[in-house]
């Protein structure tokens, strides 16, 4: 489209009653203006360099891409997950304050892994069509997006659990902070990774959540019940609460997470190939 045609169209939009906008369009198009050369543009850019706002260290940190990704993902993660995790942790703290648990697991240590595992399982939810549309529309890979969300949810639950543990350590003389943290940390990590892996394998976040919570629930129940049966003893997964097994649980969690992310990446590539 020539300048004259473009101007004529604009004039016809604004001046619908005018019979002949051609003359005016022609005249307007005739008024040319000087064009800067490439060298002049480059010189202008150089002169403007000194005016660039100086970015503080905080600005630079804030623009680091993993942080930007996390901030963007916060808006996409379902609000119910944050609220439910907070509620469960508060419940854990309150019941721990109000009960005598002897040398067994505190309610917080029981509930902290539950909240984390449920939240993590719900991240990989195939019903979130809008989220997947957004993921398809962005250059970020599904793995990276899921890892960002895992970091957010797990980090949120970890922070809440730590805060709850500190409150309990302050308010209850018989609770020591470090042992309390260790009592829930390894199970939380393992169950979260298990819930994620099961969600990926089954393609169903509810299945992932249910199975991982069944494992944990079974362990807690059977742990507090005197067991004579070897089968039940095995089903109680004693390793989940064993102090010596904690490093292995964390290692197993890392493995489950890595395998889950790898599987997600393979599914993404297959979808891409089919498209």
């Amino acid at each position, binding site marked *: 489209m020539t300048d004259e045609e*473009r*101007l004529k169209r*604009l*004039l016809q939009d*604004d*001046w619908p009653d*005018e019979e002949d906008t051609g*003359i*005016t369009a*022609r*005249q*307007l198009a*005739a*008024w*040319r*203006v*000087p*064009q*800067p050369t490439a060298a*002049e*543009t480059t010189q*202008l*850019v150089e*002169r*403007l*360099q000194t*005016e*660039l*706002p100086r970015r503080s260290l905080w600005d630079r940190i804030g623009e680091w891409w993993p942080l930007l990704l996390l901030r963007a993902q916060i808006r996409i993660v379902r609000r119910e997950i944050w609220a439910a995790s907070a509620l469960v942790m508060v419940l854990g703290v309150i019941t721990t304050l109000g009960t005598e648990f002897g040398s067994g697991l505190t309610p917080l240590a029981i509930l902290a892994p539950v909240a984390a595992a449920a939240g993590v399982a719900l991240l990989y939810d195939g019903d979130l069509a809008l989220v997947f549309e957004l993921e398809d529309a962005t250059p970020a890979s599904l793995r990276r997006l899921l890892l960002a969300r895992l970091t957010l949810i797990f980090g949120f639950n970890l922070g809440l659990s730590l805060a709850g543990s500190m409150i309990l350590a302050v308010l209850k003389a018989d609770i020591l902070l470090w042992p309390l943290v260790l009592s829930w940390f390894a199970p939380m990590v393992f169950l979260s990774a298990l819930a994620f892996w099961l969600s990926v394998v089954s393609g169903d976040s509810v299945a992932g959540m249910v199975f991982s919570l069944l494992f944990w629930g079974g362990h807690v129940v059977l742990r507090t019940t005197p067991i004579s049966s070897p089968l039940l003893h095995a089903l109680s997964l004693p390793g989940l609460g064993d102090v010596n097994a904690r490093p292995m649980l964390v290692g197993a969690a890392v493995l489950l997470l890595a395998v889950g992310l790898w599987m997600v990446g393979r599914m993404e590539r297959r979808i891409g190939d089919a498209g």
Partner: protein
Amino acid sequence: MALARLVERHHSLLLGFLYRMTGDRALAEDLVQETFVRVLRGIRQYDYPRPFKPWLYSIATHLARDHYKRAEMRYTVLMLEDAAEEEMDAPEERLLLDGAARQVAVAITQLPDHQREAVVLRYYQELSLAEIAEMMQVPVGTVKSRLSLGLKRLREVVVEQE
């Protein structure tokens, strides 16, 4: 790199706009630089995803108004007619004001400031009516009426010349 891209994208059109506002290339270049300087200094006040172009031209328009409000800097093509040819910077500047171009330049410069701005922003910078309204802080209806009056006047001058 972002700065270079920003300047490359807007330099030519901005220079054209300020040249049409002031009639003086050297002054237009100074104002282009000043516009970009103000953009960089005020970049923290710019809220994305607000459109950038109206904000840019709002700054440029204010700068141009500050200059042509001063009587000695009032733009007129007639001043260039009196200037000796050798005072013009380059041959292309003489060509820019030949014939039909001179007619429309004279007509537009004779318009009241608000009408001139509306006409140049609409037809040369291709801003929408809503964008011009936001820039000028007036209703869209006012922009339409300024354009209508400006174009009528322009048409009268053009027809007279023809």
